[in-house]
Protein backbone atom coordinates (compact mmCIF):
# COMPACT_ATOMS: atom_id res chain seq x y z
CA UNK A 1 0.00 0.00 0.00
CA UNK A 2 1.36 3.42 -0.87
CA UNK A 3 2.03 6.07 1.73
CA UNK A 4 1.76 9.81 1.76
CA UNK A 5 5.01 11.30 0.59
CA UNK A 6 6.18 13.74 3.24
CA UNK A 7 9.55 14.37 1.64
CA UNK A 8 10.00 17.26 -0.77
CA UNK A 9 8.57 16.21 -4.13
CA UNK A 10 7.93 19.45 -6.05
CA UNK A 11 9.65 19.77 -9.38
CA UNK A 12 9.87 23.51 -8.72
CA UNK A 13 8.84 24.47 -5.21
CA UNK A 14 9.23 28.24 -5.58
CA UNK A 15 7.30 28.32 -8.81
CA UNK A 16 4.51 26.25 -7.24
CA UNK A 17 4.17 28.56 -4.29
CA UNK A 18 4.17 31.61 -6.51
CA UNK A 19 1.44 30.10 -8.67
CA UNK A 20 -0.62 29.30 -5.59
CA UNK A 21 -0.27 32.83 -4.31
CA UNK A 22 -1.25 34.15 -7.74
CA UNK A 23 -4.44 32.13 -7.62
CA UNK A 24 -5.49 34.03 -4.54
CA UNK A 25 -4.05 37.41 -5.53
CA UNK A 26 -7.47 39.11 -5.78
CA UNK A 27 -8.08 38.61 -2.08
CA UNK A 28 -11.81 37.83 -2.35
CA UNK A 29 -12.14 35.23 0.37
CA UNK A 30 -15.31 33.60 -0.94
CA UNK A 31 -13.74 33.21 -4.32
CA UNK A 32 -10.56 31.85 -2.77
CA UNK A 33 -12.52 29.30 -0.82
CA UNK A 34 -14.11 28.03 -4.00
CA UNK A 35 -10.77 27.83 -5.74
CA UNK A 36 -9.35 25.87 -2.83
CA UNK A 37 -12.28 23.49 -2.85
CA UNK A 38 -11.83 22.81 -6.55
CA UNK A 39 -8.12 22.37 -6.10
CA UNK A 40 -8.56 19.86 -3.29
CA UNK A 41 -11.01 17.82 -5.32
CA UNK A 42 -8.83 17.86 -8.43
CA UNK A 43 -5.72 16.83 -6.55
CA UNK A 44 -7.54 14.27 -4.40
CA UNK A 45 -8.82 12.52 -7.49
CA UNK A 46 -5.35 12.53 -8.97
CA UNK A 47 -4.00 10.81 -5.86
CA UNK A 48 -6.98 8.49 -5.74
CA UNK A 49 -5.66 6.09 -3.11
CA UNK A 50 -8.01 6.34 -0.13
CA UNK A 51 -5.33 5.40 2.42
CA UNK A 52 -3.05 8.21 1.24
CA UNK A 53 -5.92 10.70 1.25
CA UNK A 54 -6.94 9.73 4.76
CA UNK A 55 -3.36 10.11 5.96
CA UNK A 56 -3.19 13.59 4.45
CA UNK A 57 -6.52 14.54 6.00
CA UNK A 58 -5.35 13.37 9.42
CA UNK A 59 -2.22 15.43 9.22
CA UNK A 60 -4.14 18.44 7.93
CA UNK A 61 -6.59 18.20 10.82
CA UNK A 62 -3.80 18.01 13.41
CA UNK A 63 -1.90 21.12 12.40
CA UNK A 64 -2.63 24.03 14.71
CA UNK A 65 -1.66 27.60 14.03
CA UNK A 66 -1.26 30.50 16.42
CA UNK A 67 -4.75 31.84 15.76
CA UNK A 68 -6.58 28.58 16.61
Amino acid at each position, binding site marked *: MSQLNLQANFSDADAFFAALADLHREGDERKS*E*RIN*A*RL*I*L*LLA*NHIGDQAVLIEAMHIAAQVTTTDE
Partner: protein
Amino acid sequence: MVSTYVNPVYAFKPSHDQTANPPTHYPVLIVGGGPTGLYCALDLAKQGIPSVVLDEDNTVSYGSRALCFSKRTLEILDRVGCGQAMVDKGVTWQLGKVFFHERQVYEFNLLPEDGHQRPAFINIQQYYPEEFLVNRIQDFPEIDLRWQSKVTQVKKIGELVEVSVTTPTGDYRMTCDYVLVADGANSPIRESLGLHSSGQIFNDTFLIADILMKADFPTERWFWFDPPFHPGQSVLLHKQPDGCWRIDFQLGPNADRQAWRDPEKVRPLVKAMLGDDIEFEFEWLSVYSFRCRRMDSFIHEDRILFVGDSAHQVSPFGARGANGALQSAENLIWKLARVLKQQAPAALLNTYDQERSQGADENILNSTRATDFITPKNRVTRLFRDTVLELAEQYPFARPLVNSGRLSLPCTYENSTLSTADAVTDKFPKTLRPGSSGKDAPIKALNTAHSAEPWLLPQLGDRFVLLVDGRALPTEALAQLEQVTDLEIVVIAEQITTNYTTLKDSAGLVAERYDLQPGTAYLIRPDQHVAARWRQIHVDKVLAAMQRALGKELV
Protein backbone atom coordinates in the same frame (compact mmCIF):
# COMPACT_ATOMS: atom_id res chain seq x y z
CA MET B 1 -56.67 11.40 -2.79
CA VAL B 2 -55.21 8.27 -4.39
CA SER B 3 -57.25 7.58 -7.52
CA THR B 4 -55.18 4.90 -9.22
CA TYR B 5 -55.25 2.50 -6.32
CA VAL B 6 -58.04 1.42 -4.01
CA ASN B 7 -56.83 -0.08 -0.77
CA PRO B 8 -58.36 -3.52 -0.33
CA VAL B 9 -60.24 -3.98 2.92
CA TYR B 10 -59.53 -7.28 4.63
CA ALA B 11 -62.24 -8.44 6.96
CA PHE B 12 -61.66 -9.26 10.58
CA LYS B 13 -62.51 -12.89 11.31
CA PRO B 14 -62.86 -14.08 14.88
CA SER B 15 -60.51 -16.93 15.75
CA HIS B 16 -61.05 -20.05 17.84
CA ASP B 17 -57.98 -18.95 19.74
CA GLN B 18 -60.04 -16.18 21.31
CA THR B 19 -61.82 -18.73 23.51
CA ALA B 20 -59.09 -21.35 23.79
CA ASN B 21 -58.15 -22.39 27.29
CA PRO B 22 -55.29 -22.97 27.82
CA PRO B 23 -54.07 -20.49 25.15
CA THR B 24 -53.22 -22.04 21.78
CA HIS B 25 -49.54 -22.65 21.17
CA TYR B 26 -47.81 -21.96 17.82
CA PRO B 27 -44.23 -22.41 16.74
CA VAL B 28 -44.12 -18.84 15.40
CA LEU B 29 -46.29 -15.76 15.85
CA ILE B 30 -45.63 -12.70 13.73
CA VAL B 31 -46.48 -9.19 14.89
CA GLY B 32 -47.13 -6.89 11.92
CA GLY B 33 -48.38 -7.51 8.41
CA GLY B 34 -46.14 -5.09 6.54
CA PRO B 35 -43.78 -6.37 3.83
CA THR B 36 -41.54 -7.94 6.47
CA GLY B 37 -44.18 -9.86 8.42
CA LEU B 38 -46.01 -11.05 5.32
CA TYR B 39 -42.81 -12.26 3.69
CA CYS B 40 -41.70 -14.06 6.85
CA ALA B 41 -44.96 -16.03 6.99
CA LEU B 42 -44.58 -17.13 3.36
CA ASP B 43 -40.96 -18.14 3.67
CA LEU B 44 -41.73 -20.07 6.86
CA ALA B 45 -44.62 -21.86 5.14
CA LYS B 46 -42.31 -22.83 2.31
CA GLN B 47 -40.01 -24.34 4.92
CA GLY B 48 -42.94 -26.24 6.40
CA ILE B 49 -43.51 -24.04 9.46
CA PRO B 50 -47.05 -22.73 10.12
CA SER B 51 -47.52 -19.27 11.61
CA VAL B 52 -50.04 -16.63 12.57
CA VAL B 53 -49.63 -13.04 11.37
CA LEU B 54 -51.30 -10.34 13.46
CA ASP B 55 -51.87 -6.91 12.00
CA GLU B 56 -53.67 -4.09 13.76
CA ASP B 57 -55.01 -2.63 10.53
CA ASN B 58 -57.24 -4.08 7.79
CA THR B 59 -55.40 -3.17 4.62
CA VAL B 60 -52.01 -2.68 2.95
CA SER B 61 -49.83 0.45 3.03
CA TYR B 62 -51.60 3.80 2.76
CA GLY B 63 -49.84 5.80 0.10
CA SER B 64 -46.84 4.78 -1.95
CA ARG B 65 -44.07 4.74 0.75
CA ALA B 66 -41.29 2.40 -0.46
CA LEU B 67 -40.81 2.86 -4.14
CA CYS B 68 -37.58 1.40 -5.39
CA PHE B 69 -37.13 -2.37 -5.07
CA SER B 70 -33.76 -3.85 -5.91
CA LYS B 71 -32.84 -6.92 -7.90
CA ARG B 72 -32.00 -8.87 -4.77
CA THR B 73 -35.42 -8.09 -3.31
CA LEU B 74 -37.07 -9.34 -6.49
CA GLU B 75 -35.04 -12.54 -6.22
CA ILE B 76 -36.10 -12.95 -2.60
CA LEU B 77 -39.72 -12.38 -3.58
CA ASP B 78 -39.27 -14.93 -6.37
CA ARG B 79 -38.58 -17.55 -3.74
CA VAL B 80 -42.10 -17.05 -2.38
CA GLY B 81 -43.68 -16.68 -5.81
CA CYS B 82 -44.20 -12.89 -5.87
CA GLY B 83 -41.33 -11.68 -8.07
CA GLN B 84 -43.10 -11.90 -11.40
CA ALA B 85 -46.10 -9.85 -10.24
CA MET B 86 -43.66 -7.16 -9.10
CA VAL B 87 -41.86 -7.04 -12.42
CA ASP B 88 -45.11 -7.11 -14.42
CA LYS B 89 -46.47 -4.13 -12.52
CA GLY B 90 -43.29 -2.17 -11.81
CA VAL B 91 -41.47 0.29 -14.04
CA THR B 92 -37.78 0.29 -14.82
CA TRP B 93 -35.73 3.35 -15.57
CA GLN B 94 -32.18 3.55 -16.83
CA LEU B 95 -31.57 7.19 -17.53
CA GLY B 96 -30.85 9.51 -14.64
CA LYS B 97 -30.24 13.25 -14.83
CA VAL B 98 -28.61 15.48 -12.27
CA PHE B 99 -29.33 19.21 -12.19
CA PHE B 100 -27.60 21.94 -10.24
CA HIS B 101 -29.14 25.42 -10.13
CA GLU B 102 -30.73 25.91 -13.53
CA ARG B 103 -28.52 23.55 -15.48
CA GLN B 104 -28.26 19.85 -16.17
CA VAL B 105 -24.87 18.79 -14.84
CA TYR B 106 -24.77 15.35 -16.37
CA GLU B 107 -26.82 12.28 -17.12
CA PHE B 108 -26.08 8.64 -16.58
CA ASN B 109 -27.39 5.41 -18.02
CA LEU B 110 -27.60 2.45 -15.68
CA LEU B 111 -27.21 -0.20 -18.32
CA PRO B 112 -28.01 -3.46 -16.61
CA GLU B 113 -25.69 -6.43 -17.01
CA ASP B 114 -27.17 -8.97 -19.42
CA GLY B 115 -27.98 -12.49 -18.44
CA HIS B 116 -30.00 -11.91 -15.27
CA GLN B 117 -33.67 -12.76 -14.95
CA ARG B 118 -34.41 -9.67 -12.86
CA PRO B 119 -33.62 -6.02 -13.58
CA ALA B 120 -31.31 -4.02 -11.30
CA PHE B 121 -34.38 -2.50 -9.65
CA ILE B 122 -37.96 -1.51 -10.33
CA ASN B 123 -40.15 1.29 -9.07
CA ILE B 124 -43.48 0.25 -7.59
CA GLN B 125 -45.67 1.64 -4.83
CA GLN B 126 -45.37 -0.31 -1.58
CA TYR B 127 -49.07 -1.22 -1.50
CA TYR B 128 -48.54 -3.48 -4.51
CA PRO B 129 -45.92 -5.82 -3.03
CA GLU B 130 -47.98 -5.99 0.15
CA GLU B 131 -51.07 -6.90 -1.84
CA PHE B 132 -49.14 -9.53 -3.83
CA LEU B 133 -47.87 -11.06 -0.59
CA VAL B 134 -51.36 -11.09 0.94
CA ASN B 135 -52.75 -12.75 -2.19
CA ARG B 136 -50.01 -15.34 -2.20
CA ILE B 137 -50.69 -16.15 1.44
CA GLN B 138 -54.13 -17.41 0.39
CA ASP B 139 -52.32 -20.35 -1.25
CA PHE B 140 -50.95 -21.48 2.11
CA PRO B 141 -53.54 -22.80 4.57
CA GLU B 142 -50.78 -23.07 7.19
CA ILE B 143 -50.62 -19.26 7.37
CA ASP B 144 -53.29 -17.62 9.47
CA LEU B 145 -53.36 -13.91 8.65
CA ARG B 146 -55.48 -12.01 11.17
CA TRP B 147 -56.49 -8.41 10.53
CA GLN B 148 -57.58 -5.88 13.13
CA SER B 149 -55.64 -7.86 15.65
CA LYS B 150 -53.40 -5.57 17.62
CA VAL B 151 -50.68 -7.08 19.73
CA THR B 152 -50.61 -5.33 23.08
CA GLN B 153 -47.97 -7.33 24.87
CA VAL B 154 -45.15 -9.75 24.19
CA LYS B 155 -43.73 -11.47 27.22
CA LYS B 156 -41.26 -14.28 27.70
CA ILE B 157 -42.43 -16.85 30.23
CA GLY B 158 -39.99 -19.70 30.79
CA GLU B 159 -39.15 -21.12 27.37
CA LEU B 160 -42.30 -19.70 25.76
CA VAL B 161 -43.41 -16.31 24.62
CA GLU B 162 -46.89 -15.13 25.48
CA VAL B 163 -48.55 -12.75 23.04
CA SER B 164 -51.61 -10.70 23.98
CA VAL B 165 -53.98 -9.56 21.26
CA THR B 166 -56.87 -7.14 21.19
CA THR B 167 -59.58 -7.36 18.52
CA PRO B 168 -63.00 -5.86 17.76
CA THR B 169 -64.59 -8.86 19.48
CA GLY B 170 -62.38 -9.14 22.50
CA ASP B 171 -58.90 -9.81 23.82
CA TYR B 172 -57.02 -13.10 23.95
CA ARG B 173 -53.63 -14.65 24.46
CA MET B 174 -51.53 -17.21 22.61
CA THR B 175 -48.13 -18.72 23.24
CA CYS B 176 -45.33 -19.52 20.83
CA ASP B 177 -41.77 -20.76 20.64
CA TYR B 178 -40.61 -17.65 18.81
CA VAL B 179 -42.22 -14.32 18.11
CA LEU B 180 -41.15 -12.23 15.14
CA VAL B 181 -41.61 -8.54 15.87
CA ALA B 182 -42.17 -6.85 12.51
CA ASP B 183 -44.25 -3.92 13.68
CA GLY B 184 -42.37 -1.20 11.80
CA ALA B 185 -39.99 1.64 12.58
CA ASN B 186 -41.78 2.93 15.66
CA SER B 187 -42.22 -0.61 16.96
CA PRO B 188 -44.61 -0.27 19.88
CA ILE B 189 -43.57 -3.75 21.04
CA ARG B 190 -39.89 -2.77 21.12
CA GLU B 191 -40.72 0.27 23.20
CA SER B 192 -43.02 -1.69 25.54
CA LEU B 193 -40.12 -4.05 26.28
CA GLY B 194 -37.97 -1.06 27.20
CA LEU B 195 -35.73 -1.62 24.17
CA HIS B 196 -34.51 1.06 21.82
CA SER B 197 -33.33 1.66 18.33
CA SER B 198 -30.68 4.33 18.38
CA GLY B 199 -28.78 6.39 15.87
CA GLN B 200 -29.02 9.66 14.08
CA ILE B 201 -32.05 11.91 13.71
CA PHE B 202 -31.98 14.23 10.71
CA ASN B 203 -33.50 17.67 11.16
CA ASP B 204 -34.61 18.12 7.61
CA THR B 205 -38.24 17.77 6.66
CA PHE B 206 -39.22 16.25 3.34
CA LEU B 207 -42.42 16.27 1.34
CA ILE B 208 -43.53 13.48 -0.94
CA ALA B 209 -45.93 14.52 -3.64
CA ASP B 210 -47.24 11.73 -5.84
CA ILE B 211 -48.74 13.28 -8.94
CA LEU B 212 -50.51 12.07 -12.06
CA MET B 213 -49.36 13.78 -15.22
CA LYS B 214 -51.56 13.93 -18.28
CA ALA B 215 -48.75 14.65 -20.71
CA ASP B 216 -46.10 12.19 -21.73
CA PHE B 217 -43.07 12.58 -19.56
CA PRO B 218 -39.90 10.54 -19.96
CA THR B 219 -39.32 7.56 -17.65
CA GLU B 220 -36.20 9.00 -16.06
CA ARG B 221 -34.93 9.90 -12.63
CA TRP B 222 -34.26 13.59 -12.21
CA PHE B 223 -32.44 14.97 -9.24
CA TRP B 224 -32.07 18.70 -8.63
CA PHE B 225 -29.67 20.28 -6.23
CA ASP B 226 -30.61 23.83 -5.29
CA PRO B 227 -32.94 24.49 -8.25
CA PRO B 228 -34.26 28.00 -9.00
CA PHE B 229 -37.84 26.85 -8.37
CA HIS B 230 -36.98 25.61 -4.87
CA PRO B 231 -33.85 27.49 -3.75
CA GLY B 232 -31.46 25.93 -1.28
CA GLN B 233 -33.20 22.55 -1.33
CA SER B 234 -33.13 19.31 -3.30
CA VAL B 235 -35.87 17.77 -5.42
CA LEU B 236 -36.23 14.26 -6.82
CA LEU B 237 -38.57 13.14 -9.57
CA HIS B 238 -39.15 9.42 -9.99
CA LYS B 239 -41.51 7.40 -12.18
CA GLN B 240 -44.02 4.97 -10.66
CA PRO B 241 -46.59 2.68 -12.30
CA ASP B 242 -50.10 3.94 -13.18
CA GLY B 243 -48.84 7.15 -14.81
CA CYS B 244 -47.81 8.36 -11.38
CA TRP B 245 -44.68 10.34 -10.51
CA ARG B 246 -43.10 10.69 -7.11
CA ILE B 247 -41.65 14.09 -6.30
CA ASP B 248 -39.56 14.38 -3.17
CA PHE B 249 -39.07 17.95 -1.98
CA GLN B 250 -36.58 18.79 0.71
CA LEU B 251 -38.23 21.43 2.89
CA GLY B 252 -35.45 22.31 5.29
CA PRO B 253 -35.41 22.04 9.08
CA ASN B 254 -37.97 24.75 9.89
CA ALA B 255 -40.76 23.81 7.51
CA ASP B 256 -44.37 24.18 8.59
CA ARG B 257 -45.32 20.53 8.36
CA GLN B 258 -49.05 21.16 8.47
CA ALA B 259 -49.02 23.82 5.78
CA TRP B 260 -47.20 21.57 3.33
CA ARG B 261 -49.95 18.97 3.48
CA ASP B 262 -52.19 21.40 1.61
CA PRO B 263 -52.21 20.69 -2.15
CA GLU B 264 -52.77 24.37 -2.87
CA LYS B 265 -49.47 25.20 -1.23
CA VAL B 266 -47.61 22.51 -3.15
CA ARG B 267 -49.20 23.22 -6.53
CA PRO B 268 -47.19 26.38 -7.43
CA LEU B 269 -43.97 24.55 -6.60
CA VAL B 270 -44.78 21.64 -8.90
CA LYS B 271 -45.86 24.06 -11.62
CA ALA B 272 -42.60 25.95 -11.35
CA MET B 273 -40.76 22.67 -11.63
CA LEU B 274 -42.61 21.07 -14.55
CA GLY B 275 -43.50 24.21 -16.47
CA ASP B 276 -46.88 25.83 -16.91
CA ASP B 277 -48.10 23.67 -19.77
CA ILE B 278 -47.96 20.34 -17.93
CA GLU B 279 -51.23 19.34 -16.31
CA PHE B 280 -51.15 17.22 -13.20
CA GLU B 281 -53.22 16.07 -10.23
CA PHE B 282 -52.11 15.11 -6.76
CA GLU B 283 -52.31 11.47 -5.72
CA TRP B 284 -50.79 11.59 -2.27
CA LEU B 285 -48.98 14.11 -0.09
CA SER B 286 -46.88 13.16 2.88
CA VAL B 287 -44.54 15.21 5.05
CA TYR B 288 -41.87 13.31 6.91
CA SER B 289 -38.49 13.49 8.55
CA PHE B 290 -36.32 10.47 9.12
CA ARG B 291 -33.80 8.67 11.19
CA CYS B 292 -31.03 6.20 10.65
CA ARG B 293 -31.00 3.87 13.61
CA ARG B 294 -30.83 0.27 14.72
CA MET B 295 -31.23 -1.88 17.79
CA ASP B 296 -28.00 -3.01 19.44
CA SER B 297 -29.22 -6.57 19.15
CA PHE B 298 -32.07 -7.87 17.03
CA ILE B 299 -32.66 -10.75 19.43
CA HIS B 300 -34.20 -10.25 22.86
CA GLU B 301 -34.26 -13.03 25.45
CA ASP B 302 -33.46 -15.63 22.78
CA ARG B 303 -37.04 -15.93 21.53
CA ILE B 304 -38.16 -12.42 20.66
CA LEU B 305 -36.77 -11.65 17.23
CA PHE B 306 -36.94 -8.17 15.72
CA VAL B 307 -36.98 -7.99 11.96
CA GLY B 308 -37.42 -5.25 9.35
CA ASP B 309 -37.84 -1.59 10.27
CA SER B 310 -38.39 -2.41 13.95
CA ALA B 311 -34.78 -3.65 14.05
CA HIS B 312 -33.15 -1.15 11.70
CA GLN B 313 -34.30 1.98 9.93
CA VAL B 314 -32.65 4.07 7.24
CA SER B 315 -33.31 7.33 5.43
CA PRO B 316 -35.18 6.95 2.14
CA PHE B 317 -32.14 7.99 0.10
CA GLY B 318 -30.76 4.91 -1.51
CA ALA B 319 -33.96 2.91 -1.14
CA ARG B 320 -32.75 0.55 1.52
CA GLY B 321 -35.65 0.35 3.97
CA ALA B 322 -37.85 -2.32 2.50
CA ASN B 323 -34.93 -3.84 0.58
CA GLY B 324 -32.89 -4.21 3.76
CA ALA B 325 -35.95 -5.43 5.65
CA LEU B 326 -36.52 -8.31 3.23
CA GLN B 327 -32.87 -9.29 3.22
CA SER B 328 -33.02 -9.51 7.00
CA ALA B 329 -36.22 -11.52 6.85
CA GLU B 330 -34.72 -13.95 4.38
CA ASN B 331 -31.59 -14.31 6.49
CA LEU B 332 -33.65 -15.11 9.57
CA ILE B 333 -36.24 -17.52 8.23
CA TRP B 334 -34.10 -20.39 6.97
CA LYS B 335 -32.23 -20.37 10.26
CA LEU B 336 -35.36 -20.25 12.39
CA ALA B 337 -36.94 -23.06 10.38
CA ARG B 338 -33.92 -25.31 10.95
CA VAL B 339 -33.79 -24.51 14.65
CA LEU B 340 -37.49 -25.35 14.97
CA LYS B 341 -36.99 -28.59 13.04
CA GLN B 342 -34.04 -29.39 15.30
CA GLN B 343 -31.69 -29.55 12.36
CA ALA B 344 -29.59 -26.77 13.83
CA PRO B 345 -28.73 -25.51 17.32
CA ALA B 346 -30.50 -22.41 18.64
CA ALA B 347 -27.12 -20.64 18.43
CA LEU B 348 -27.62 -20.45 14.66
CA LEU B 349 -30.06 -17.61 15.34
CA ASN B 350 -27.24 -15.48 16.76
CA THR B 351 -25.76 -15.40 13.29
CA TYR B 352 -28.93 -13.66 12.12
CA ASP B 353 -28.00 -10.86 14.48
CA GLN B 354 -24.35 -10.89 13.35
CA GLU B 355 -24.92 -11.08 9.63
CA ARG B 356 -27.76 -8.63 9.53
CA SER B 357 -26.00 -6.21 11.86
CA GLN B 358 -23.41 -5.98 9.14
CA GLY B 359 -26.17 -5.49 6.55
CA ALA B 360 -27.89 -2.83 8.68
CA ASP B 361 -24.63 -0.97 9.30
CA GLU B 362 -23.86 -1.01 5.60
CA ASN B 363 -27.31 0.34 4.75
CA ILE B 364 -27.18 2.99 7.45
CA LEU B 365 -23.72 4.08 6.31
CA ASN B 366 -24.80 4.39 2.69
CA SER B 367 -28.02 6.18 3.41
CA THR B 368 -26.33 8.55 5.88
CA ARG B 369 -23.68 9.44 3.32
CA ALA B 370 -26.32 10.19 0.69
CA THR B 371 -28.30 12.25 3.17
CA ASP B 372 -25.22 14.25 4.14
CA PHE B 373 -24.45 14.96 0.50
CA ILE B 374 -28.03 16.05 -0.18
CA THR B 375 -28.35 18.12 2.99
CA PRO B 376 -24.88 19.54 3.82
CA LYS B 377 -24.52 20.29 7.49
CA ASN B 378 -22.45 23.50 7.35
CA ARG B 379 -21.09 26.15 5.03
CA VAL B 380 -17.86 24.38 4.15
CA THR B 381 -19.43 21.00 3.39
CA ARG B 382 -21.99 22.83 1.26
CA LEU B 383 -19.13 24.53 -0.55
CA PHE B 384 -17.51 21.18 -1.31
CA ARG B 385 -20.85 19.68 -2.33
CA ASP B 386 -21.56 22.56 -4.70
CA THR B 387 -18.04 22.47 -6.07
CA VAL B 388 -18.39 18.76 -6.81
CA LEU B 389 -21.58 19.52 -8.73
CA GLU B 390 -19.95 22.33 -10.70
CA LEU B 391 -16.94 20.22 -11.60
CA ALA B 392 -19.17 17.28 -12.54
CA GLU B 393 -20.60 19.20 -15.45
CA GLN B 394 -17.26 19.45 -17.17
CA TYR B 395 -15.14 16.72 -15.62
CA PRO B 396 -16.16 13.07 -15.36
CA PHE B 397 -13.81 12.58 -12.40
CA ALA B 398 -16.18 14.47 -10.10
CA ARG B 399 -19.27 12.45 -11.02
CA PRO B 400 -18.67 9.51 -8.69
CA LEU B 401 -18.69 12.01 -5.82
CA VAL B 402 -22.25 13.10 -6.61
CA ASN B 403 -24.40 11.11 -4.21
CA SER B 404 -28.16 11.34 -4.52
CA GLY B 405 -28.56 7.80 -3.18
CA ARG B 406 -26.69 4.64 -4.14
CA LEU B 407 -28.39 1.59 -5.52
CA SER B 408 -29.00 -1.02 -2.86
CA LEU B 409 -26.78 -4.05 -3.46
CA PRO B 410 -26.98 -7.30 -1.52
CA CYS B 411 -24.76 -7.52 1.52
CA THR B 412 -21.79 -9.89 1.40
CA TYR B 413 -21.47 -11.44 4.84
CA GLU B 414 -17.73 -10.94 5.27
CA ASN B 415 -16.13 -13.09 7.98
CA SER B 416 -19.41 -14.77 8.82
CA THR B 417 -18.95 -17.64 11.23
CA LEU B 418 -21.13 -19.67 8.88
CA SER B 419 -18.73 -19.38 5.94
CA THR B 420 -15.75 -21.61 5.19
CA ALA B 421 -12.89 -19.54 3.79
CA ASP B 422 -11.46 -20.37 0.37
CA ALA B 423 -8.29 -22.45 0.34
CA VAL B 424 -5.55 -20.15 -0.97
CA THR B 425 -4.38 -22.87 -3.35
CA ASP B 426 -7.80 -22.94 -4.99
CA LYS B 427 -7.13 -19.47 -6.42
CA PHE B 428 -10.72 -18.28 -6.58
CA PRO B 429 -11.48 -14.71 -7.63
CA LYS B 430 -13.00 -12.35 -5.05
CA THR B 431 -16.43 -12.32 -6.63
CA LEU B 432 -18.79 -14.89 -5.18
CA ARG B 433 -16.49 -15.45 -2.22
CA PRO B 434 -18.18 -17.17 0.73
CA GLY B 435 -20.78 -14.82 2.20
CA SER B 436 -21.86 -13.42 -1.19
CA SER B 437 -25.33 -13.86 -2.53
CA GLY B 438 -25.42 -16.14 -5.55
CA LYS B 439 -25.41 -14.66 -9.02
CA ASP B 440 -28.01 -15.38 -11.60
CA ALA B 441 -27.24 -16.65 -15.12
CA PRO B 442 -29.27 -18.14 -17.96
CA ILE B 443 -29.47 -21.94 -17.96
CA LYS B 444 -31.49 -24.65 -19.58
CA ALA B 445 -32.89 -27.09 -17.05
CA LEU B 446 -32.26 -30.56 -18.48
CA ASN B 447 -33.57 -32.30 -15.41
CA THR B 448 -35.10 -30.52 -12.46
CA ALA B 449 -37.84 -30.92 -9.91
CA HIS B 450 -37.76 -27.18 -9.30
CA SER B 451 -38.42 -24.26 -11.56
CA ALA B 452 -38.86 -24.58 -15.30
CA GLU B 453 -37.57 -21.03 -15.70
CA PRO B 454 -34.38 -20.83 -17.74
CA TRP B 455 -32.47 -19.14 -14.89
CA LEU B 456 -30.03 -20.37 -12.28
CA LEU B 457 -31.28 -18.63 -9.14
CA PRO B 458 -34.73 -20.27 -9.12
CA GLN B 459 -32.88 -23.61 -8.91
CA LEU B 460 -31.15 -22.54 -5.70
CA GLY B 461 -32.53 -21.69 -2.28
CA ASP B 462 -34.86 -23.24 0.32
CA ARG B 463 -32.36 -26.07 0.97
CA PHE B 464 -28.57 -26.36 0.75
CA VAL B 465 -27.34 -26.90 -2.77
CA LEU B 466 -24.02 -28.30 -3.88
CA LEU B 467 -23.56 -26.79 -7.31
CA VAL B 468 -21.04 -28.91 -9.17
CA ASP B 469 -19.26 -28.43 -12.48
CA GLY B 470 -20.05 -31.72 -14.22
CA ARG B 471 -17.01 -31.82 -16.47
CA ALA B 472 -15.23 -33.88 -13.83
CA LEU B 473 -17.93 -35.51 -11.79
CA PRO B 474 -16.68 -37.10 -8.56
CA THR B 475 -19.33 -39.82 -8.68
CA GLU B 476 -18.31 -41.61 -5.50
CA ALA B 477 -18.22 -38.49 -3.38
CA LEU B 478 -21.55 -37.39 -4.75
CA ALA B 479 -23.09 -40.77 -4.02
CA GLN B 480 -22.23 -40.22 -0.36
CA LEU B 481 -23.33 -36.59 -0.28
CA GLU B 482 -26.59 -37.48 -1.94
CA GLN B 483 -27.65 -39.08 1.35
CA VAL B 484 -27.31 -35.88 3.36
CA THR B 485 -30.60 -34.34 4.53
CA ASP B 486 -31.30 -30.80 3.41
CA LEU B 487 -28.62 -30.96 0.71
CA GLU B 488 -29.29 -31.30 -2.98
CA ILE B 489 -26.70 -31.86 -5.67
CA VAL B 490 -27.14 -29.72 -8.78
CA VAL B 491 -24.86 -30.43 -11.71
CA ILE B 492 -23.86 -28.02 -14.48
CA ALA B 493 -23.39 -30.19 -17.57
CA GLU B 494 -24.08 -30.46 -21.29
CA GLN B 495 -26.15 -33.61 -20.96
CA ILE B 496 -27.98 -35.51 -18.30
CA THR B 497 -25.40 -37.95 -17.00
CA THR B 498 -26.84 -38.65 -13.59
CA ASN B 499 -30.04 -38.62 -11.59
CA TYR B 500 -29.16 -35.22 -10.27
CA THR B 501 -30.80 -31.95 -11.19
CA THR B 502 -28.84 -31.06 -14.30
CA LEU B 503 -28.56 -27.59 -15.78
CA LYS B 504 -27.01 -26.69 -19.07
CA ASP B 505 -24.93 -23.54 -19.00
CA SER B 506 -26.66 -22.24 -22.12
CA ALA B 507 -24.78 -18.95 -22.44
CA GLY B 508 -21.55 -19.96 -20.70
CA LEU B 509 -22.29 -17.39 -18.01
CA VAL B 510 -22.50 -19.81 -15.09
CA ALA B 511 -18.93 -20.89 -15.82
CA GLU B 512 -17.86 -17.28 -16.21
CA ARG B 513 -19.60 -15.86 -13.14
CA TYR B 514 -18.76 -18.77 -10.84
CA ASP B 515 -15.28 -19.21 -12.32
CA LEU B 516 -16.02 -22.87 -12.94
CA GLN B 517 -13.31 -25.37 -13.79
CA PRO B 518 -13.88 -29.10 -14.14
CA GLY B 519 -14.84 -30.28 -10.65
CA THR B 520 -15.43 -26.85 -9.07
CA ALA B 521 -18.24 -26.92 -6.52
CA TYR B 522 -20.16 -24.32 -4.50
CA LEU B 523 -22.08 -25.01 -1.32
CA ILE B 524 -25.02 -22.61 -1.38
CA ARG B 525 -27.18 -21.83 1.64
CA PRO B 526 -30.98 -21.85 1.64
CA ASP B 527 -30.88 -18.03 1.28
CA GLN B 528 -28.80 -18.41 -1.90
CA HIS B 529 -25.65 -17.10 -0.24
CA VAL B 530 -22.38 -18.94 -0.80
CA ALA B 531 -21.21 -20.95 2.24
CA ALA B 532 -18.06 -22.51 0.75
CA ARG B 533 -16.42 -23.46 -2.55
CA TRP B 534 -13.72 -25.80 -3.74
CA ARG B 535 -11.89 -26.75 -6.89
CA GLN B 536 -12.34 -30.43 -6.03
CA ILE B 537 -14.91 -32.01 -3.76
CA HIS B 538 -13.91 -33.92 -0.65
CA VAL B 539 -16.82 -35.46 1.20
CA ASP B 540 -15.39 -34.51 4.59
CA LYS B 541 -14.88 -30.92 3.62
CA VAL B 542 -18.38 -30.53 2.24
CA LEU B 543 -19.87 -32.10 5.35
CA ALA B 544 -17.78 -29.91 7.62
CA ALA B 545 -18.75 -26.77 5.69
CA MET B 546 -22.39 -27.67 5.93
CA GLN B 547 -22.16 -28.31 9.67
CA ARG B 548 -20.48 -24.97 10.00
CA ALA B 549 -23.16 -23.22 7.92
CA LEU B 550 -25.77 -24.73 10.24
CA GLY B 551 -24.06 -23.20 13.25
CA LYS B 552 -23.01 -26.55 14.69
CA GLU B 553 -19.56 -25.22 15.50
CA LEU B 554 -21.06 -22.47 17.60
CA VAL B 555 -22.18 -24.69 20.48
